[in-house]
C-alpha cells in the first residue's frame, strides 16, 4: 500500500486501451472473422478469414463475485487461454481458447467448481440484475436472491439450447429499473405499493420542497405545513408508488415489508432481428416477497417459460409469439388473471387499447 501512495497521483487516465488485454489470436484476426458455429451449448467456434479458429466457452456467473472466485477465473484463463478472458454483456464469463482439445478439460474443471456452461443461442442466458438488499436503499426486493432462485429452476435451459429462440430475463429491484428490465423477454420488477411515509421531522432539513414537489410524475405531492413546519403531503389516490420522490428526498421512504413485492412482465426485446425492439408488458401485477426462495415468482417464471417453450415456433421470441397468438390466449395458457391493472392508464394509455376488430376466439 505504502508504495502506491508515494507515487504521483494520476487522474483521467481512462480505461485500459481497448486492445491491451486481447489475446494474440484475436489481435491477429481482429475484424477478420468470417462466420461461427456452435459446437455445444456454451461452446462457440469463430472462424477467421485466415482459417484460424477461436473457441469460446461461456460459463454462468452470479455476477456478485468474491476476489477468491475472480482469482480462480484468472487461474483457469492462465491454464487454458494464455491468460486472457472476458465477461459478457449479461455478466457471464467467457474463456477464449485456441486449442479445441482443451475445451473438454476446461468444462470439467468448471463443472467441478459448480459453474455451468451454456447460455448461447436458444438458451436462457444469465439474468441481468441489480443491487437489491445487498447495496441499495430503494430496493423493494432483493435481486441476487431472486436471480439465484430463478436460475436454479431454469438451469437446464441455460445448459441446453432447447427454446424456440433466445430468452432474456432481467430483474430490477425498484422502478428505477437499473436492470433495464423494460425490454426483456421476462422481467421481474420489485414494486412498492404504499405511498411514501413522510418523515416530517427531517424533511425540511434534508430536502428542497419545490424540487420534491416537481419530482412527482402525477403531481401527487403538495406543500403542507405540519406541526408548524414546512413539509409536504401526498394525495394518496394520485400516488402510484414510483419512488421518484424518494430518489430526490430521503425523507420519503416507501418500503413496506408486507406490501412491497414483485411484478412480472413479458414480451420485450432489444434486438432488431425480425421485429422491432419493444417494451415488456405486464402479466402479473404483484406477487409477495417471499425470501429466501420466492416460490411464487419462480413458479410464475417457470410457467411462462414452459408455455412458451411448448407453443412458440422456431425463431419466435416471447413477444413475437404472443403477438401471433394474442394476449387473451397467453393469459389462458398461463392461467394468470387479467385485471384492471393490466390496462394502461398512464400517458399514452389510449394507444394500447385494441383499436381494431381483430379478435381471436
Amino acid at each position, binding site marked *: 500500500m505504502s508504495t502506491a501512495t508515494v507515487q504521483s497521483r494520476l487522474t483521467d487516465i481512462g480505461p485500459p486501451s481497448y486492445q491491451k488485454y486481447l489475446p494474440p489470436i484475436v489481435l491477429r484476426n481482429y475484424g477478420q472473422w468470417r462466420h461461427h458455429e456452435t459446437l455445444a451449448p456454451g461452446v462457440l467456434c469463430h472462424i477467421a478469414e485466415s482459417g484460424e479458429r477461436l473457441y469460446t466457452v461461456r460459463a*454462468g456467473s452470479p455476477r456478485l463475485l*468474491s*476476489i477468491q472466485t475472480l482469482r480462480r477465473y*484468472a487461474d483457469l484463463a492462465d491454464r487454458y487461454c494464455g491468460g486472457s478472458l472476458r465477461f459478457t454483456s449479461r455478466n457471464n464469463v467467457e474463456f477464449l481458447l485456441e486449442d479445441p482439445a482443451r475445451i473438454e478439460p476446461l468444462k470439467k474443471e468448471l463443472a467441478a467448481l459448480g459453474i455451468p456452461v451454456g447460455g448461447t443461442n436458444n438458451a436462457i442466458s444469465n439474468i441481468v440484475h441489480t443491487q437489491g438488499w445487498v447495496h441499495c436503499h430503494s430496493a423493494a426486493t432483493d435481486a441476487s436472491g431472486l436471480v439465484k432462485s430463478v436460475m436454479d429452476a431454469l438451469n437446464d435451459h441455460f445448459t441446453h439450447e432447447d427454446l424456440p429462440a433466445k430468452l432474456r430475463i432481467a430483474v430490477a429491484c425498484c422502478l428505477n429499473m437499473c436492470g433495464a428490465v*423494460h425490454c426483456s423477454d421476462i422481467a421481474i420488477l420489485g414494486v412498492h405499493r404504499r405511498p411514501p411515509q413522510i418523515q416530517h421531522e427531517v424533511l425540511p432539513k434534508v430536502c428542497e420542497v419545490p424540487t420534491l414537489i416537481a419530482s412527482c410524475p402525477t403531481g401527487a405531492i403538495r406543500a403542507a405545513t405540519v406541526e408548524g413546519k414546512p413539509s409536504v403531503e401526498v394525495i394518496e389516490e394520485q400516488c402510484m408508488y414510483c419512488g421518484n420522490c424518494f430518489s430526490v428526498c430521503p425523507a420519503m421512504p416507501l418500503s413496506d415489508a408486507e406490501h412491497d413485492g414483485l411484478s412480472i412482465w413479458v414480451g420485450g426485446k432489444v*434486438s432488431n432481428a425480425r421485429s*422491432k425492439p419493444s417494451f415488456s408488458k405486464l402479466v402479473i401485477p404483484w406477487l409477495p416477497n417471499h425470501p429466501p426462495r420466492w416460490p411464487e415468482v419462480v413458479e410464475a417464471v417457470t410457467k411462462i417459460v414452459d408455455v412458451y417453450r411448448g407453443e412458440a415456433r422456431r425463431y419466435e421470441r416471447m413477444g413475437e409469439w404472443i403477438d401471433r397468438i394474442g394476449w387473451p390466449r397467453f393469459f389462458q395458457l398461463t392461467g394468470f388473471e387479467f385485471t384492471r391493472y393490466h390496462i394502461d392508464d398512464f400517458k399514452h394509455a389510449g394507444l394500447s387499447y385494441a383499436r381494431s376488430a381483430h379478435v381471436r376466439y
Partner: protein
Amino acid sequence: MADNNGNSGSNEKPATKLLDELEEGPWPSFVTEIKSAAEANDSARDLLGQLEVSYEEKKSHWKHGGLVGVLGYGGGVIGRYSDVGDQFPKVAHFHTLRVNQPAAWFYSSEALRKVCDIWERHGSGLTNMHGSTGDMILLGTTTDQLEPTFQELTHAGFDLGGSGSAVRTPSCCVGMARCEWACFDTMKLCYDLTMTYQDELHRPAFPYKFKFKCSGCPNDCVASIARSDLAVIGTWKDDIQIDQEEVGKYAAAGLNIQRDVCGNCPGKCMDWDGRALHIENRDCVRCMHCINAMPKALRPGKEKGAVILIGAKAPIVQGALLSSVLIPFVPADELLDTLKELVQRIWDFWDEYGTNRERIGELIQRVGLPAFLDGIGLDPVPEMVAAPRDNPYIYFQTEKEGDQ
C-alpha cells in the same frame, strides 16, 4: 494481518439461516461468494449479517446514499450507509467504486489479479462483474479507503467510472474482436469516446446522466437502443453478401428457408425458390434475421457504418423510452468525428433547455423532435420517424418561410 480496512480476523460468523438456503441448487451462489469473501474480510461478514436481517424483515437496511468521492472527481463512488450500523459496524459505511471496464470486458489474468489485490487491501473483497451500465463494481468500502483505492487503481491502469449527472461509462459489444458481423470497430469507438469525455465523465455538470453504448450490428448485444442516451448501432448500406451454395446446404440440412427465414423477414423482401435465395435489398431493413439464421451463407454488405440513435432510458419520470434514429447512416471511418461534433451540439442544447433530472430523451419528448433538430442544426429526414404525423395540429412557421 489487520489491514487498513480493519479486517481483524474475527471468528464470529453470523447465523444465516435464510441465506444458507441460497447455497443449494445448480446455479452459482452469490451467498457462497459473500461467505468466501467473509472468510478473510469483516465487512463482507457484516454484509452477510445485515443481508440476513433484510431477508428476515423483507426490507433494505441501507440509508439514502450520501456524497463521497475522490479528490477532483465528482462521481464514480456510490456512498452507502447502513441503518443497522450498530449491529453491523463493518458495513456502517459501505461505499462502492465504479471502475471503467476495459472495452468489451476483456481482461488479462494479471490485470484481474491486480484488481483483486487492490480490493483485498482496501475493500470488502466483493465485486460485481459487472454493473449493468458496464462498470467493474468494487462493492463496499469506507470513506478513508476511497482515495488510496483510487490511486492504486490508476497506477494499475484503471480509472473510475461515472455516477451522478455525468457521462456514464460507455460500453460496447465484443465486435471485431470476435464477431463476424461487426460493422464498425465498437471497441475502438467505445474507448475513444471514453477518452474524449474524461472530463464529462468524472465531473458531473449535466442536467442528468448520459449513457453511450455501441453495438456492432442490429442484434444490439449491449442493448444500446434500450439503455443508452446515445446508441451507435452498426449496419451496412449495400447488398447482403450471399453464398448461394451455403444457402443450399442450410436447406439440405433441414432449415425451412421459405417459412422460417423469408417468412420472418420484416422487409418482406426475400424469396427462396428452392435453388436460389433472392433478396430485394432496397426493401431490406437490415434486421439481421436472415444472416443470424444462416451465418455461413449470408453476411452484411461491405459498405459499413452505423445508425446513430438517441434518447433511451428507464421509466422514471415520464415513462421508459427507446432510442430513436437521429442519423440513419454514418460511414464507419467517420463515426468518431461525427459523434464528437454531434454530441457537443446535443449537450449544448441540453445544457440550455434541459431541466434538473431531465434525460435528453425526455427533453426531446417535451420540446418535440422538430425543435430539437432545429436546436442542434440537423435537417429532418424521414428515417427519423416510424411514420409522419397523423394529427393535423401543425405549428406552421409562415413568417420564416415566406408564404408559399
